């Protein structure tokens, strides 16, 4: 369970988040919607520990642990995963080596030996099929030369490999055509388990039609101004964010 209490945060001295309260229970999918610049990505970056953001007040706990005191890699080992809005290209590091390093780091923390080579390759093969990536993936450099759609599918592929318990999808639908969106969304749904939860950041209803969130929050100017069920997405689609700005 992820619990955010009165979270204030800033970047370069500018306050972006102005008191966020948010609780995501095991098994729930929450959606976070809001205009550009509202602070959606800031919130996701803070959950995963991006060093550029400064938390000035408040707390985040994850399964009882103080998340803000943990290094980014420790948060990952605890089960937190971010599907980046803009996945980073890493020339010269193959997907193979990258995933192996990530997987083995996690296994080490769990007291397991490194994954045997054949088992690893089998896992890579199985999981890339979920998002329909081809067999050239393993030897390609991380995200280098990937199309926009491939990058997003690659994010979900990594999620499939690492099996997080809490996933954040930060505008995973942006820049995707309808087919790619379906592949990504269906991939995500295949990976869902009763105990895993997620926070989905998006501008559009289309992704939510696939993912069926339990709860939708509207974030405006650093504050959650409205929380409701799936019907909120329809309201936004019809009336925009203005209705909530008035509400706040």
């Amino acid at each position, binding site marked *: 369970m992820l619990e955010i209490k009165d979270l204030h945060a800033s970047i370069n001295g500018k306050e972006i988040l102005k008191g966020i309260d948010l609780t995501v229970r095991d098994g729930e999918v929450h959606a976070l919607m809001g205009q550009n610049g509202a602070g959606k990505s800031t919130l996701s970056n803070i959950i995963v520990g991006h060093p550029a953001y400064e938390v000035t007040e408040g707390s985040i706990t994850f399964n009882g642990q103080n998340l803000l005191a943990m290094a980014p890699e420790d948060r990952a080992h605890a089960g937190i995963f971010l599907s980046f809005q803009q996945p980073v290209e890493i020339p010269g590091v193959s997907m193979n*080596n990258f995933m192996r390093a990530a997987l083995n780091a996690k296994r080490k923390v769990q007291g397991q030996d490194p994954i045997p080579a054949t088992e690893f390759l089998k896992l890579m093969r199985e999981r890339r099929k979920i998002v329909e990536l081809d067999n050239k993936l393993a030897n390609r450099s991380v995200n280098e030369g990937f199309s926009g759609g491939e990058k997003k599918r690659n994010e979900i592929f990594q999620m499939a490999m690492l099996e997080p318990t809490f996933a954040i999808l930060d505008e995973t639908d942006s820049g995707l055509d309808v087919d790619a969106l379906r592949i990504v969304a269906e991939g995500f749904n295949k990976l869902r388990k009763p105990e895993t939860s997620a926070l989905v950041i998006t501008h559009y209803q289309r992704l939510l039609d696939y993912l069926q969130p339990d709860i939708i929050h509207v974030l405006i100017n650093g504050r959650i101004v409205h929380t409701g069920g799936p019907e909120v997405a329809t309201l936004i689609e019809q009336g925009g964010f203005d209705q909530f700005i008035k509400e706040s």
Partner: protein
Amino acid sequence: MSVEKQYIELYEQCRAMVNEHSAALLNEPRDKAYEDFCRLGFPTQKQERYKYTNVAEAFAPDYGLNLRHIEIPVNPYEVFRCDVPNLSTSLYFVVNDRFYDKVLPKVSLPEGVLVMSLAEAAKDHPELVAGHYGRLARSRKDGLNALNTMFCQDGLFIYVPRHTVLERPLQIINILRADVDLMVNRRVLIVVEEGAEAKVLFCDHAIDDHQFLATQVSEVYVGENAHLELYELEETHVKNHRFSNMYVDQQRSSTTTIDSITLHNGLTRNRTDVTLNGEYAETRMFGCVVADKQQHVDNNTLIDHRVPNCQSTELYKYVLDGEAVGAFAGRVLVREGAQKTTSQETNANLVATDTAHMYTQPMLEIYADDVKCSHGSTIGQLNEQALFYMRQRGIPLDEARMLLKFAFAGEVLDSICLEPLRDRLHYLVEKRFRGELSKCEGCKLCK
């Protein structure tokens, strides 16, 4: 001339002894070199090509010289375990400046091929040595060449006659071994005749915990249609000083690959001058430097396009940590009339700490109007975005840094055509970045 004085006096006193333990062909240019050295002294940092390394300072300490050719007890096979296994090479050892002839490879070389002591070759095959020795490495303009020519008594001679193909690479292990601080002046002469092919791998090691200073002057002749791959791997230690001057002469339609890799060192200065003297010749030059602590690596290159229709490629990459100092100065000279020259020069550097320094100076000088040349240089730090991305996936910071450095250096290692060597270097470089390889693996004494 204070630092020079001890070497000038030493030569004046020991001239006869130096000559006695060498060969006539090597003795012949000594006095001239002595005059040159008296006139030139050591190069200073005011000279363009020596801007980044203080030569005199490295020569200031009182080193011993083994001019009497006293045999230093060493069994290279005992102290040295090959660092590049699975690479079936013809393995030779050079201990300090002496070719080690007590144990030679079992596999015989093709007819006419010579791998032997330079001094012996000068006596036994003067016709092969005479026309080549001292022709490329002149003492007139370079104080280091002058000093080396004054004192060098031996070294290595490699001769591959016309149309002879050496399938098996030659591996030469240069071992520095002494019970006192030692200076070694070594000479290398490589002649690959018309249509011949050879691959040569030099591995530099220093096995004792003493201060070493080695000067090595190499002259390399690559004949018409000949193909030479030359790899140099330095795995010495922080008390080692290496001054290498290499001169390569390429004839028509020849190809040369020079790969220089510095994994461990103290102070290293590599000068590599390639002259393209025949049309349709090609040069590929690569360098990879991994340095930390207070290591100093200075690569200074010149590719001289004297004739039309030649190609050159140059790629040097440095990864600097700690308080390391790196320098790269590469000059590509396209002379008047050298039309249709293609040349590409790249130097990319990763400076991982704010205490490390990199000096880079790519230079392109063109006197012909129908050429395709480019040069570029970058200095950067580890990509913070990439580091964070990896950490989010659970890869610890140190491991993430290592992966990025390794990826950066990998491009140069991939240029190595000898597959087992390439694989081995990938492994060695990775270990180096992991900090598991604080000295060379090959030497028993380092373990």
